[in-house]
């Protein structure tokens, strides 16, 4: 097999040594060159024509963001951002993802003790990027709905029609942005999202979404109510579950150990939703590597809920949806472009009757 050829762009001499060392521990990866800033990086990009670029965003001269823009314009190639935990690290990383970076790897502060873990992650992402269909940033549709001023102070007693649970990984930030920006502020269902992302990034991620979407988006806190028109993003490094309580339903965060190697894990959320809400659950498995969420989707299906997988064409990485589809857990397979309208239809109109029966389910399944 032809090795994946990688260009490492980083202003730290140490990182230019360390990153090749750790990723070349995998035989199928070959580092063809390194560059210390954006200008060199672009020159080497032309010269070496690598399959994947790893990119540090903080560099002197031409910054990582500028280089990323230039790459996407002139020489599109998958870029994996090597990001750091700092106040601005999350913000600039999310910006890079918006500009078309394939994915990112966060260097935690205790990076030296978790080196092998990070190496595994980086290697997996490089391989996924190399196998991907290159980069296709789906241009965002014009915002359908105006932001509502009142969304900061929601009615705590409001009850959602359905509980939508979404699991997503690589390619998620852009895909979620795409879907959520097309939902109205008075979306009748409540949405919970597990996006594989380290802590420190999810808060910024939720804030950015909240700024650009009509629907309210916030990083979940334990005890947050599941309200209509609200999206709760599970914070990094925690698990999110749901629970019905006498006065309303809430999200609960836990520190249980990793599931499928992930925390947050999509399976944890999906299974909990299936247990608590059964047929009122709508589970959506979206773009991402691996198979986290596939079994959870099965649990939702078994509990009589609706299960949806993003279609292969619109996925950056067709991994998690593929696992669910192959196991027969997805009742519907839909493209990113129509996901919002699908959710809208599922949560409102004739489905909004609060029946707990399974009657509606077979009908929906039939539509598929």
């Amino acid at each position, binding site marked *: 097999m032809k090795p994946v050829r990688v260009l490492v762009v980083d*202003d*730290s*001499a*140490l*990182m230019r*040594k*360390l990153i090749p*060392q750790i990723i070349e521990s995998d035989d199928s990866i070959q580092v063809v060159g390194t560059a210390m800033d954006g200008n060199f990086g672009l020159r080497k990009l032309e010269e070496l024509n690598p399959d994947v670029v790893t990119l540090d965003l*903080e*560099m*002197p001269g031409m910054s990582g963001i500028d280089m990323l823009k230039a790459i996407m314009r002139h020489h599109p190639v998958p870029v994996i951002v090597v990001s*750091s*935990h*700092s*106040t*601005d690290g999350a913000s600039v990383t999310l910006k890079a993802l918006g500009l078309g970076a394939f994915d990112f790897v966060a*260097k*935690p*502060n*205790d*990076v*030296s*003790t978790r*080196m092998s873990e990070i190496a595994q992650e980086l290697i997996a992402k490089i391989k996924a990027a190399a196998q991907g269909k290159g980069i296709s940033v789906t241009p965002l549709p014009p915002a359908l709905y105006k932001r509502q001023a009142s969304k*900061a*102070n929601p009615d*705590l*007693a409001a009850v959602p029609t359905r509980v939508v649970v979404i699991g997503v990984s690589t390619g998620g930030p852009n895909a979620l942005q795409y879907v959520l920006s097309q939902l109205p502020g008075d979306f009748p269902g409540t949405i919970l999202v597990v996006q594989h992302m380290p*802590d*420190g990034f999810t*808060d910024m991620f939720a*804030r950015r979404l909240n700024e650009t979407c009509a629907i309210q988006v*916030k990083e979940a*806190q*334990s*005890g*947050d*109510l599941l309200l209509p028109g609200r999206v709760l993003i599970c*914070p990094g*490094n925690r698990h999110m579950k749901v629970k019905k*309580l006498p*006065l*309303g339903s*809430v999200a609960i965060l836990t520190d249980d150990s990793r599931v499928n190697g992930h925390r947050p894990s999509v399976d944890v959320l999906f299974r909990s939703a299936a247990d608590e809400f059964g047929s009122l659950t709508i589970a959506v498995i979206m773009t991402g590597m691996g198979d986290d969420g596939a079994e959870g989707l099965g649990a939702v299906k078994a509990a009589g809920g609706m299960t949806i997988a993003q279609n292969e064409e619109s996925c950056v990485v067709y991994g998690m949806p593929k696992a669910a589809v192959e196991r027969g857990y997805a009742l519907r397979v839909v493209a990113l472009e129509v996901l919002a309208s699908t959710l809208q239809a599922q949560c409102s109109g004739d489905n909004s009757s609060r029946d707990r029966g399974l009657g509606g389910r077979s009908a929906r399944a039939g539509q598929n």
Partner: protein
Amino acid sequence: MSGKDERGAELRELFFETAAELLQALNEGALQLEKTPADPEVVRSIRRTVHTLKGDAAACGYRELSELSHEMEDALALESASAHASLADVTFAAADVFTDMLAAYRRSKKVPDGSTLRAMIRKLAATPSAKKKTRKSDTKKSIGSQWTEYEQLTITTALEQGRSVVHVTVTLDPQCAMPIAGRQLLHSALKNLGDVLAQYPPASSSSVGRVVEFAVATTKTIAEVSARAKIPTVASKVKSELLEGRAAKTNKAASATAIAPTAPVVPAPALNLESVSHDPLAPSGTPHQPENILRVDAERIDNVLNLVGELIIGKSMLQQALNELVADDPKHPVRGKFVDAMGFQARVLNDLQRSVMKIRMVPVEQLFRRFPRVVRDVARQCGKDVSLVITGENTDLDKSILDTIAEPLTHLVRNAVGHGIESTTMRTAAGKPVQGTIRLNAYHQANQVIVEVSDDGHGIDVERVRAKAVEQGLISSEEAARLNETEVLRFIFQPGFSTAQEVTEVSGRGVGMDVVQSVLQRLKGTVDVDSRPGLGTTFRLRLPLTLAIIKALLFRVEQRLYAIPLNAVVEIARSVESEVHQVDHYEVLTLRNEVLPLVRLGRPVAFGSEATAKKLFVLVITVAERKFGLIVDSLEGEEELVIKALDDHAISTDLVSGASIMGDGRVVLILNLAAVIEHFARSRSAGTGSVLSGLLLSHADRARMSQSAAGGHA
């Protein structure tokens, strides 16, 4: 595996190289910032440098450096910070601290904690206009108070139903060892009164905060609720109030007032937690990284050290046994094996001892750190301009010694600023720079650590000390005239001696120098002073590396075994009684044209021709820069001694500072040389009329001796 280690070492080497360049860039950035303050481009480049340093340090596992640079990077991201006037200073400080940290990592020494820098960084970030901070608190407001949304819902629902809801704020008793269990107890107590609608911190939380809040729907009065919550030994303070309308606002105000008064009473560790969790800049929700540092009770280390000491005694016992065996049968077949095994054991024991000692060692920086502030404060009080230069702060010293010298050293530094450095006008008149300089220095010398405090002031006026000593009746004027400068200066360590003209707040009350001296004696160290008129004064503290084990020279006096620290011994001379001369009331020996005062520890020889030919050993020692000869009967060799402290009941003289047990079970007494010399000097100046000797004799022995001496004279 070894390949990995090699790779790690190679990476670290690369790190040190590149980090040096980054620090250089940081210094250059700071310089540039001084020229063009708040230049956004310069600030950005500084931030990038710090960012790279942070990432590299993290990759090499240098946690402290990575965390500190992380904090700095975050602070630099704030808009207010770049406009901050002190940014250049902070950057300089950062470059220095980072350099120190790098040096510490390279030498695997203790890493300076950079607390000063951290404080500077926090100050940068704490400017009220800090952009991020306001944004953060904005979202906080919109989310609500400490109650979860569900709890808020339950509270408002209860209020809407016309129930009365009491907000209870309980401050846990600082003595309450288990705050989580305490919370549980409170919860059960309140449950008996009605419905507990909300609790903060949540029941499942492992937070050990000292303030717990509840919202209880109840028919009871506030007073009844308070009474119920006031569980002895759990709750130290309870505040209850009725909630009305929107719960969130009341709670916010209540929690703020509840936290403020409790802060001072919480014990230090809890206080830290408290302040961390309330720090608006601390990344919220990030769990504390497990530290790779163990905090161990000093007592436990002492226990280990004690056991090591016992092992050393055991080693001596074995050696003794081996010697006896060899003496009996020099060709014993297992002798070679025995010697090898002993050698091996000795090496391991040596390493073990050193490792344990190293645990107790801390850099004097821990102590020096406090002095910039001391100097600044005292200088301000006196209206002087004084700078402090610290060097050698990485010198390691036994923690207990470090703690003990803190006070004397502070005294010396205060004195140096208050009295050593002249007033600004005097300095100008003397043609000196207006700013005075205090230097703190520490370094290793042989088996000792030297800590120096020097100033560039006017020095100590020797003549005034001489006059004062006579005035205070410490010495006769004839004797005073004979003393050289060093000897005169020693008077400043006498209790109650002060040359300061007036008593000031800073110093000059005549207490202190003698305390310095006595503390140093207790530590088996010494203090001496070196003063040059018009140029300044240096106080030099000589401290043992450790208190627990010494290399000692063993000797016999009157059949008894004694020891003195080997590092005090300059040389060992052999002589005969006839060489010892009497001058005034003391004995001297001329050693290579130098007159050496002698201290006779045992009884003097009787007069007689055969006695004058008797050979004797003279141990030449230096105590506080003065040379003495100790006359001893015989030498026993050198040995590592594990000092066993003697309590006051066991021994009534300060001449002996401790004891040790030899391998063969014999007890050896360790002499306190400083006290011996003190005794010697005192009885000499007292002029008792007889040669001082027999210091180490028992009362009975001495009585007999003075009788015979009196007889001899008569």
